[in-house]
């Protein structure tokens, strides 16, 4: 996320580093560079102007000019301003005091409303709620079918009416059904629409009037360019949305749309979509995003993902095994799968402070394939072999290599690393999987 912007700003600030005091023209130069990188990050022009003038004014103040570490001061100012612009803290989706909470999803075509609706439903299931999905996209062929499939995947009922083209009616009846069946949250998915399509915008307004939602969520593609401002304005005028879900943030989009939409509408970003899987939806944290932009990593999100995917019991049991030195390859496989549930390795490691720089400097490619190979090797072992790797002789090794599509050398390597790791753990008597890193890099 925001990779390129991070790189750019770091480039600018490393230029300032080690020069002691700044001159006014140094700061002007930095401001120009910040302006350019914000524009290239698709932050919209009016927002860029507002940001750079705020940053520039503060940077020319005494706190920077007279500082011995002006670069750090500028980083702090940029960070402050970005955070301030994106909203001070995480905002939760408001819930109705009297259930059901009704959430209306809106956005342009292809912004990711249907997927996002299903992700939201899954998110609320995990929060202990009982959501229902309503398929009101009567325009795109098979859109209702898509929502029905996704609803099935997350275990949430979907209200759909085959053959009906009455989006307002479907929405109304969907909410009625949710009430009748005691669901406490309704997510209404709608068709994508162009903001200039008056008829379609009117349909959205009528849906809103009919169901009187607790909140309207505007779904915005993180790759959106300068249009983000107009989109936010148009949807704001039509349905006065309450918050934004920013999708497709797992690519290399610099995501300036996040800043633009927030600045123009004043409405908070509630969620970000970070992958194709239905669990890839996270609450948005503006302060973390700002530190991410500045290359300071995002440890908080990493910890949260870990908590979401690893239960306390699992962790305790594992710790016990590690302490007693009785860890088996089976446990190891479990552990690895838990780490992988947190997302692709490149993404997980990218959240660690400084990782990006290290990866760049050493031209390090994080290879999820390597993990898959280790997994394949262990899966090609019998249960006995996993529990007691000592029985794995030459002929078993050949069989395992053939079964996993790897080589005997790779099997050997894994076994010897595992033995070393177990020895190390026994010596330490506690601690957690210090050698997992060793298995990743070769």
């Amino acid at each position: 996320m925001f990779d390129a912007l991070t790189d750019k700003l770091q480039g600018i600030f490393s230029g300032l580093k080690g020069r002691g005091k700044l001159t006014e023209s140094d700061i002007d130069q930095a401001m120009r560079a910040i302006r350019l990188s914000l524009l290239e990050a698709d932050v919209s022009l009016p927002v860029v102007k507002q940001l750079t003038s705020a940053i520039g004014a503060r940077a020319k103040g005494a706190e920077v000019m007279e500082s011995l570490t002006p670069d750090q001061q500028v980083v702090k100012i940029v960070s402050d301003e970005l955070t301030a612009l994106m909203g001070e803290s995480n905002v939760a989706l408001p819930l109705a005091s009297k259930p059901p909470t009704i959430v209306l999803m809106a956005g342009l075509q292809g912004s990711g409303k249907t997927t996002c609706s299903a992700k939201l439903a899954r998110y609320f299931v995990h929060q202990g709620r009982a959501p229902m999905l309503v398929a009101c996209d009567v325009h795109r062929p098979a859109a209702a079918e898509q929502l029905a499939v996704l609803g099935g995947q997350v275990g949430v009922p979907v209200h759909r009416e085959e053959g009906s083209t009455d989006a307002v009616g479907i929405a109304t009846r969907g909410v009625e059904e949710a009430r009748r069946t005691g669901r406490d949250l309704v997510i209404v998915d709608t068709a994508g629409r162009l903001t200039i399509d008056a008829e379609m915008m009117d349909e959205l307004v009528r849906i809103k009037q009919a169901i009187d939602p607790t909140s309207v969520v505007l779904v915005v593609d993180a790759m959106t360019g300068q249009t983000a401002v107009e989109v936010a304005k148009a949807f704001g005028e039509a349905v006065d949305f309450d918050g934004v879900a920013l999708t497709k943030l797992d690519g290399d989009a610099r995501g300036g749309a996040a800043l633009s939409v927030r600045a123009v509408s004043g409405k908070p970003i509630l969620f970000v979509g970070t992958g194709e899987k239905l669990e890839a939806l996270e609450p948005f944290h503006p302060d973390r995003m700002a530190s991410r932009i500045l290359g300071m990593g995002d440890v908080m999100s990493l910890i949260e993902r870990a908590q979401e995917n690893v239960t306390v019991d699992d962790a305790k049991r594992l710790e016990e095994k590690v302490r007693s030195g009785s860890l088996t390859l089976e446990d190891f496989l479990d552990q690895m799968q838990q780490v992988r549930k947190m997302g692709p390795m490149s993404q997980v490691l990218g959240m660690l402070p400084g990782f990006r720089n290290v990866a760049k400097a050493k031209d390090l490619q994080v290879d999820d394939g390597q993990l898959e190979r280790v997994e394949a090797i262990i899966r090609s072992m019998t249960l006995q072999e996993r529990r007691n790797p000592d029985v794995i002789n030459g002929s078993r090794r050949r069989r395992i290599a053939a079964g996993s599509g790897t080589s005997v050398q790779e099997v050997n390597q894994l076994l010897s690393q595992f033995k070393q790791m177990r020895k190390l753990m026994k010596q330490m008597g506690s601690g957690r999987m210090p050698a997992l890193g060793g298995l990743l890099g070769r």
Partner: protein
Amino acid sequence: MSAEGGDAADREAWAELFGLAPPEPEQGETPRRRGLFRRLRENLSAGPRQTISPQLAGIYAGKLVTQDTWDELEEALISADCGMDATLQLVEELRQEAAEGRITSGADVSGALWRAVAQHMAPEPARIRLEHQPTVILVVGVNGSGKTTTVGKLAYRLAQLGQSVVIGAADTFRAAAIDQLAVWAERSGAHFVRQGQGADPGAVAYDTVASAKARGADVALIDTAGRLQTQHNLMEELRKVAAVVRKVDESAPHEVLLVLDATTGQNGLSQARLFDQAADLSGVVLTKLDGTARGGIALAIRRELGIPVKLVGSGEKLEDLQPFDAQAFARAIFAPDG
């Protein structure tokens, strides 16, 4: 569906794109030149906004050309998502013309601007040549850019011009993508090749081309799953789809079209670059061009990577997908009203 599909002028433009003989006008029909320019204007007049940005309107109204003119022009181009490099280059070109005395007023800027944009976008008209039997067209892009709809509309247009079409549903990932495409296949009467959700996209692509070959079809259209260009494994999968197609016909795929949402900002460059590396793009389809989204990123892509726009889409209706006409595009986005 007989009423859909536009008028004779529309079909003529499509015949030109594919290098086919223009169809006879239907009885009682008077050909009317509508095209993208007119349609975009129609879209825009229906909306609350002005056609061109206020910045441009201000520049065009100016009696003199000053430093402010160039600053405002720079902002207008950035606001259209042209990107910094393309913007600076265009402004520099126009400045040069002004220095040579060919631009002296705001009105001059207008003409010079859209002509320069048209020249950069496409010195030659867009073509999708149907020179093989079958011509294999692979449609790729990020999630939600409009691939499936584009494949559907393309199939309909080809069928309208008497071409026999086989559609392959190689988007086996997104739920119901196959059903969505099946609806389009039925509308155009194309033969439809499908497997279950989760099937190997390479296998579907192979079947599609093999089936098109066996039937002696003119065109094989392959829809692929949306993927972000940074997803290494999925890009490798795309590479494999292209390689598998090559097994049936060494010269295929003959066209690889990147479907690009016109609201896309500078990330579009990364999309074009990485999809080009994986699947060797032959053209861009610029979708959802509605006047708010100005699609300037296509200019940046053409300038940086040399990949031309071949089709533009401005809405949901069948006739909203049109062969790309650089002049009409540049005028619709940058020329003053009237």
